[in-house]
Every structure is written in structure tokens, then in C-alpha cells.
């Protein structure tokens, strides 16, 4: 079945480990800034510190799933299997961030709302999104043929992305108690800086993870191609 070109060379790590080291330091700096420099919230006290991980995780999660969508569409358009591997790498990292968003949201929710879980629109649709991408990653595990896996996961990824908006709307009609979306105007200036720094730290971390995962997925595929070529030569 695998008729795709094998002409590509797996990408090299290059300076990416250096970028990774920078990202970790930047993240540590961002967290220190958030923990020490921002004042305790009037109502929530030091509880508000969790927003420096919860909110960036949620923001960057959306960016990551947009990357999945982009590479899935590009795969269907150009049929380059590296696009599929990039989508897969982004999906893994996106699911991780999605799980992190949920877990941190629950930890945040218990003391502020008094419950670990509330059936509100954003929580529920985030959970649905998480389950959709668990399905996406399972599909990739359960399908062996690389071309088939690539086409199917592209379709599942795109349909899943289309569904996110509908899920959100349907659950919002059903029940809502989440606060309105935060924007720099609704958040006090002292929090904005720490929030922005940490958002960039998470963004860099995501890029780093996706890149390194993409490299390793490419190496696995390249090894498959090499084994196939060797078998064809009758080695």
C-alpha cells in the first residue's frame, strides 16, 4: 500500500536542544515572576497563581490543535507523509496540554467554585475535545498501514476540529457558569505581564515538544522505509 515517496531525509536535531534549554529557563523565569511578583488576589489569595499554568496551557492547547488541523489539511492536499507526522506530533502534544488544562482547571475549581467538576460549557467542551483526540491517537495506534493511517487520521482530525465549535455551543445552551473569557482589559495590569511571559514560555515549550516528537516520528518512518527497501533488494 505504501507508495509514498521515500526521498526525504529525516530532519536533524540541529540547534533545537539549545532552544529546549532556553525554553526551560524561560519557563522557570516566567513561573518565578508569576509566583513572586504578582500580588495575591483580593478574593482568591494565592490561589490565583495557578492561572500562570492553567491559562497558558489552555491557550497554547488551541494553537496546537490549529497546527493539527493545518497539517491534516496540508497532508490531504499535498500527500507528503511528513505533514501527517507533524500533525501526529502536534496531536500528541495538544492532547497532553488538553489533559493539563483539565487537571489544573479542576484543581482551580475545587477551592473557587467548591466543586472539582462543573458541567459548564468550556469545561465540558474541553473534555469532549480531549476524548476526540484520545480517539485520534487510538486510531493511529490501531492502524498499521502508514498511508491508510495518515488519510484516516487527517479526516478524523478535521472532523473533530469542525465539531469543537458545535460542541461548545450545544453545551453552552445546556448550562453555563464559567466566567467570561479573560482578556487584558478584564485582568489587572500586574497579572498581565506574568501571564504573557508564561503564555510565551508554554508556546515555546509546545514548539519544542512538537519539533522533537516530529523528529523521532520521522526517524521511525525512515527506518521503516529503509527496512522495506532492503527487503525489496532481497537482502
Amino acid at each position, binding site marked *: *500500500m505504501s507508495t509514498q515517496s521515500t526521498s526525504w531525509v529525516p530532519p536533524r536535531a540541529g540547534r533545537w536542544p539549545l532552544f529546549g534549554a532556553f525554553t526551560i529557563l524561560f519557563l522557570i523565569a516566567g513561573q518565578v515572576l508569576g509566583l513572586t511578583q504578582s500580588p495575591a488576589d483580593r478574593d482568591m489569595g494565592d490561589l490565583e497563581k495557578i492561572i500562570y499554568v492553567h491559562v497558558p496551557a489552555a491557550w497554547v492547547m488551541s494553537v496546537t490543535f490549529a497546527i493539527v488541523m493545518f497539517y491534516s489539511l496540508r497532508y*490531504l492536499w499535498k500527500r507528503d507523509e511528513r505533514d501527517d507526522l507533524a500533525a501526529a506530533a502536534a496531536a500528541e502534544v495538544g492532547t497532553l496540554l488538553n489533559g493539563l488544562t483539565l487537571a489544573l482547571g479542576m484543581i482551580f475549581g475545587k477551592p473557587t467554585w467548591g466543586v472539582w467538576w462543573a458541567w459548564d460549557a468550556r469545561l465540558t467542551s474541553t473534555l*469532549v475535545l480531549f*476524548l*476526540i483526540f*484520545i*480517539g*485520534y491517537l*487510538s*486510531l493511529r495506534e*490501531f*492502524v*498499521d*498501514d502508514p*498511508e*491508510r493511517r*495518515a*488519510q*484516516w487520521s*487527517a*479526516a*478524523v482530525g*478535521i*472532523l*473533530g476540529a*469542525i*465539531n469543537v465549535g*458545535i*460542541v461548545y*455551543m*450545544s*453545551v453552552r*445552551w*445546556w448550562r453555563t457558569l464559567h466566567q467570561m473569557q479573560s482578556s487584558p482589559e478584564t485582568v489587572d495590569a500586574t497579572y498581565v505581564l506574568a501571564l504573557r511571559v508564561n503564555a510565551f514560555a508554554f508556546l515555546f515549550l509546545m514548539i519544542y515538544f512538537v519539533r522533537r516528537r516530529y523528529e523521532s516520528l520521522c526517524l521511525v518512518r525512515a527506518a521503516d522505509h529503509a527496512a522495506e527497501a532492503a527487503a525489496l533488494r532481497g537482502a
Partner: protein
Amino acid sequence: MAFADDWRRVRAIAWKDLTTERRSKAGFNGVVALGVTILMLFGFALGPDTQAIRDAAAGALWLAALFAAVLAFNRSYQVELESGALDPLLLYPGSRWAIFSGKLLANLSFVGLMLVIVVLVGIVLFQVTIPAAWPALIGVLVLGAIGICTLGTFYASMASRSRAREVLLPLLLFPMLVPALLAAMQASKALLGGDLMHEADAWIKLLIAYDVIFLIATHLAFEHVIEA
């Protein structure tokens, strides 16, 4: 002209699938029996308080229908895969979407018929009083069935050809069906309660939008999925 040809293909595929089902009947009987069994189990979970059962009737009915329908979707490709008939089917000239439409139509008839029986049993078991707006309720049943069957037929085309298809289909399908099920349940619940708050309208509109969006999306994507 081309569309007329494709439409004939759609009918031919649907006819073929339904004939296979009609000749064995075992599949349909099994699925209906499962639907009724699930209804009964929901009764145990919710009862024996009559009012509680009545309040939960809409949700229980849709879930019983969903769990039973999931079995039908994998079956619709299973028979062909076992006899190696899917590849020859793809070799026939004509649009790929016609194959999907045909299978969808067959599944819709299959699930629709199952739904009629399960709903009738549910009305008796859950002591539901039939509301004056029963035509709207039938509309909701049709729209809900279209939503479930569209994505069910689509995802089954992948799941049935993968390892672990029994796990994969519900895993992929159920989260995707959240808006359709939520809308169908809420609309049914509102209509069964006399729709005093006039909320059924909004849910029916959402259901229509969902059906239209995914009918288009699955028809476009099917070509990529079936050829791989």
C-alpha cells in the same frame, strides 16, 4: 445526467445492503433485542419511582438507540469485508460518495426501524404520555437518527477495517455525537413535557445544523477514507 447515474448507484447500494439484512434478519433482531434490553436496564438504574423514570425517558431512549445502532454500523461493512467484496465495489465506475450515501441510506432505514420498535417499547416501559406535539417528536427522531447514522457510517468505514474495531468505533464516534445527542435528548425531553418553555425549537435548529454540516463534511471526506 451524471447525478442521475450516481443516484441510481446510491439506490443500488442501499438495496443491496438492505437485501442482505432482510435475508438474514438475525442482525436486526439482535440489535432490536439489545435496544430493548438496555431500556430495561435503564429502568432498573432509574426506577422504580414512576416520575423519575418518566423524566429520564428521553435520555434513556436515545442512549439505548445509540448503543444498539453502533452494532449496526460495523456490520454494514463487516459482511463485505468478510467476503472480500469491498475492493470490487470500489472498482466499479462512479463517484465514491454514492457508496457512502447508499450505505448511509441503508443504515438509516435499519436504525429507523429499530428506533420505531425501541421507542414504542420505551413509551410502555417508561410510562410516557404521548404529547400533542407528537409530529415534532417524530421529526426529532428522524433528525437525530440522521446525525447518528451519518457519523456512524463514516467512522465505521475506518473502524471496521482496523484492529480492535469494537473499541475504536465508539471511542471515535461517541465524543463526536455529543452535540447531536444533547440536542436530540433536550428537544425530546422538552416536547414530552409539553414544551412549556419553547426550548425545543432552538435544539431542533441545532440538530438540523449539525446534520447538514456533517452530511457535507462526511461526503467530502469519504473519498479519502475509503480508498486508503
